[in-house]
């Protein structure tokens, strides 16, 4: 391995933390979605690093499945955001409270 495994995991950890902060801080639903993509990518990076370290292909298969899941999730999520915008003219998550009353 060209770098120690710790450095790969540290990078993955940093990306995941940034993604969590994005979800917690931003009010724009689309930016929150992008932060979720960032977190999925951080997990993918950790899986690839461990797969390389243990010389096993299983981690890469999981990354493959996570990518398929991310594609499905983005399609459905963006369709929900468009439907919300069409009915409420906003994507600010503070103003969307359908379940409250």
């Amino acid at each position, binding site marked *: 391995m060209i770098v120690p495994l710790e450095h790969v995991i540290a990078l993955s950890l940093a990306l995941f933390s*940034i993604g969590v902060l994005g979800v917690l801080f931003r009010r724009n639903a689309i930016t929150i979605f992008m932060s979720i993509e960032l977190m999925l990518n951080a997990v993918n990076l950790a899986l*690839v690093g461990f797969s*390389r370290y243990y010389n096993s*292909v299983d981690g890469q298969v999981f990354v*493959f499945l996570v990518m398929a899941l991310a594609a*499905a999730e983005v399609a459905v999520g*963006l369709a929900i*955001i468009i439907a919300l915008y069409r009915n409420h003219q906003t994507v600010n998550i503070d103003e969307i409270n359908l379940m409250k009353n």
Partner: protein
Amino acid sequence: MSLSLLFYIAAFIAVGSAIFVVLNKNAVYSAILLVVCFFSLAMIYLLLEAYFLAVLEIFIYAGAIMVLFLFVVMLLNLGREKAAPHFMKFQQATSLMLVLLFFFGIFLIMINGSGELHQPLSKFSAGNVYALGEALFTKFLLPFEVASLLLLVALIGTVYLGKRKIL
């Protein structure tokens, strides 16, 4: 050694662009910076000898997913995000503290972990497409089929959500 330098450069670009994805108020700039982040991650996959996944990262994430994001951002014609209301400040400070705590907690565990992680392996034979395809169609055949079913469900769900009168 030069390869490890490449890794650190790519890691720096990835973290920097990820920070600006979160901080930027304009969703279009966030999407473009996220593409930069995905490209540097693809480079890291290449350096970790996951060649097929590097290509998939660019095809699926930078190609398909981000184009979808850009389409939606431009379709919705969003302005700049409004500032958070006053009562949100406390929540933001608390969440920042918790995330930093999480980061340093795992970081400390990693630093103080067993020292065997530096041990390099001699040869990696699993990075090629052949090994990945073989695993996908023998050991992981059921998850592979379930993934195709998931994509079908997502397709139907998206078509339904695209109709006029819902929510």
